[in-house]
């Protein structure tokens, strides 16, 4: 029997890329995406971009708290 049942099209692979990175897919789906990435250069580009987007989100997750807001919140803590 052929192993064609393991092959998935680009659309399926791309749809599952973030879940693949998060390892939230079933072992079978994880293997299917991995199998697809082994031969599809275009989807490897999508995968790299998904990683870059994740890093982009992390790098934009925090900012400076304005001093006047910090001062107000510290006063709030003092008054609890």
């Amino acid at each position: 029997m052929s192993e064609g049942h393991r092959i998935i099209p680009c659309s399926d692979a791309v749809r599952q890329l973030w879940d693949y990175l998060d390892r939230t897919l079933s072992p079978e789906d994880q293997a299917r995406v991995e199998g697809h990435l082994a031969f599809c250069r275009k989807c490897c580009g999508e995968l790299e971009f998904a990683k870059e987007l994740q890093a982009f989100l992390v790098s934009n997750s925090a900012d400076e708290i304005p001093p006047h807001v910090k001062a107000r919140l510290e006063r709030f803590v003092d008054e609890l």
Partner: protein
Amino acid sequence: MDEPAGSPEIGDSREAFERLAREQLPRLYSLARRLTSEGAEDLVQECLLRAYRSFDTLAEPQAGGSWLQSILVNAFRDRLRKESRTVQEVAVEEVDDFSLYRTIAEEDPFPYSDTLHLDFLHAFGKEDVREVLLRLPDIYRAPLVLRYMQGFATKEIARLLDAPLGTILARLHRGRKLFERELWAYAEEMGMLHKGAAP
């Protein structure tokens, strides 16, 4: 603080709470600003109030940061419920076909760039990213922020938002797609793209 004076244990506890709260204020405020468009400071205050009342339930002081963030998410969830907002589900087929990677490659917003996709992302400042996030309906934004900005596990997000794991996974999927689509739309609207620039 409205507690009986004179007990060294309570005094120690109060000091420990104050130390933790002050240390975590920047993180809490950042998280609140990404969860909500208005009332971030109010949300942090609600979190601090709840945390102070239940500080004796914090078993492991080193987990204080995560504990406070969880309380803030609970306060956010309760606020949404109180406002009784209608759940704005987005049909999966509406967003599933969009690929930011492909759109950037096809539209070529930075001609002659060797790092086209990275250049696109680097065009965004933190406030731009926040603006884009706030365009997403709450039900998609919250899991996205908690998973990819705060590093919560999906099971933990399901518990915090009181939703089945499958629902959270589906909302994460749609949230990511919506975020990609809105990044592109925002860049277009704000004139961040150099399409058709002269060589």
